[in-house]
């Protein structure tokens, strides 16, 4: 068969691909309004929050960065003590971290990105997620980092604290999914996700373009 004929028939047959239902206009509008209200002060929108997300996380990651530096510092210190016993403890411990802090900020953003990906995947899988042990394993992994962030004394932003607390709650629910009654529990979790608007809030907190290629990246 000639390619053009093929293409025409292909194109015609493809019109039924992912046939959209009627647009849930009111529901989406309500979410847009809610998202814009949450996104910034005086209704300035979500971008203003996104733009401020990195500095916010730089503050948030400070304590974690210092902790990481202490570990590195102790390691370097021990090595240094072996080769130069007369030297005092390495000064690196007390220097203000810069690159490391930025690295920790990226790590924090990646944490939220991973959480968003997990929850998006969880919701997309529907009831099948209840019997998938990978979800609970991933949630357990994320849970410990969420707790670390929550425990950070530098976490002063109530909006971010609320987001992390809601995230923690959902992650705990996912880790506790049981194989026997997984389906019912999945419904509860996805309902909770919707009610708290957790996914849109996570997306708002992740700076646009972070760890994400451009729209034409694969083209």
């Amino acid at each position, binding site marked *: *068969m000639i*390619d053009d*004929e*093929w*293409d025409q*028939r*292909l*194109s015609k*047959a*493809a*019109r*039924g*691909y*992912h046939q*959209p*239902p009627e*647009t*849930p*206009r009111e*529901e*989406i*509008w309500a*979410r*847009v309004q809610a*998202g*814009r209200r949450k*996104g910034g002060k005086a209704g*300035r*929108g*979500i*971008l*203003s929050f996104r733009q401020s997300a990195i500095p916010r996380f730089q503050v948030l990651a400070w304590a974690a960065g210092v902790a990481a530096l202490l570990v590195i510092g102790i390691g370097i210190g021990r090595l240094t003590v072996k080769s130069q016993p007369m030297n005092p403890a390495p000064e690196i411990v007390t220097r203000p971290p810069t690159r490391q802090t930025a690295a920790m900020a990226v790590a924090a953003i990646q944490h939220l*990105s*991973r959480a*968003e*990906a*997990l929850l*998006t*995947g969880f*919701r*997309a899988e529907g009831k099948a997620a209840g019997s*998938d042990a*990978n*979800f609970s394993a*991933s949630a357990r992994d994320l849970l410990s980092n969420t707790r670390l962030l929550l425990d950070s004394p530098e976490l002063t932003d109530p909006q971010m604290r609320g987001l992390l607390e809601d995230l923690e709650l959902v992650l705990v629910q996912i880790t506790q999914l049981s194989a026997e009654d997984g389906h019912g529990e999945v419904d509860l979790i996805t309902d909770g996700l919707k009610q708290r608007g957790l*996914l*849109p809030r996570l*997306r708002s907190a992740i700076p*646009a373009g972070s760890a*994400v*290629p*451009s*729209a*034409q*990246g*694969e*083209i």
Partner: protein
Amino acid sequence: MDDRELIARVLAGEASAERALYDRHVDRVYRLAYRLAGDPDLAMDFTQDTFIRAFDRLASYRGDAAFSTWLTAVATSVALNGLRKLKRFRERETDLEQGDKVASKRSSEPDLKERLSREIDRLPLGYRTVFVMHDVEGYTHEEIGTALGVETGTSKAQLSRARAKLREALADFAGEWKP
């Protein structure tokens, strides 16, 4: 009232104009989001994020292209980023069980439409996006090029490759399509 006038009113803080602009374009955005995502919740998320981002950046819209084209660029960016994140997650979580699922799906051959849908799903995201926009939703190559930030020729080439892949994948159905 045209889009430019509505946009001016939105920027002046008129809430009803915001809603009017949304009403005028939401179907097109949702349709595209749904076609790309194939999931009602994801399509809603993408549509929501598109409008939040668009309203927030409305002041940066210079009017070089039609507002619908600009909005489509925002929508495709949101949807593709979201789908890539989902893909990365699923790749991380892929296990042997999933391999079994794929094998079992292949063994029970579906009809042409079902098979076609599956093969479109399997296209690389870039190919799939162009194919869906052009052949399914009827966008022109110029619109696709603007939305994706690529040359018109690139859009045409992507579509050609997508169709070739589909032709190859569906070769066993060729007989059924003969006139």
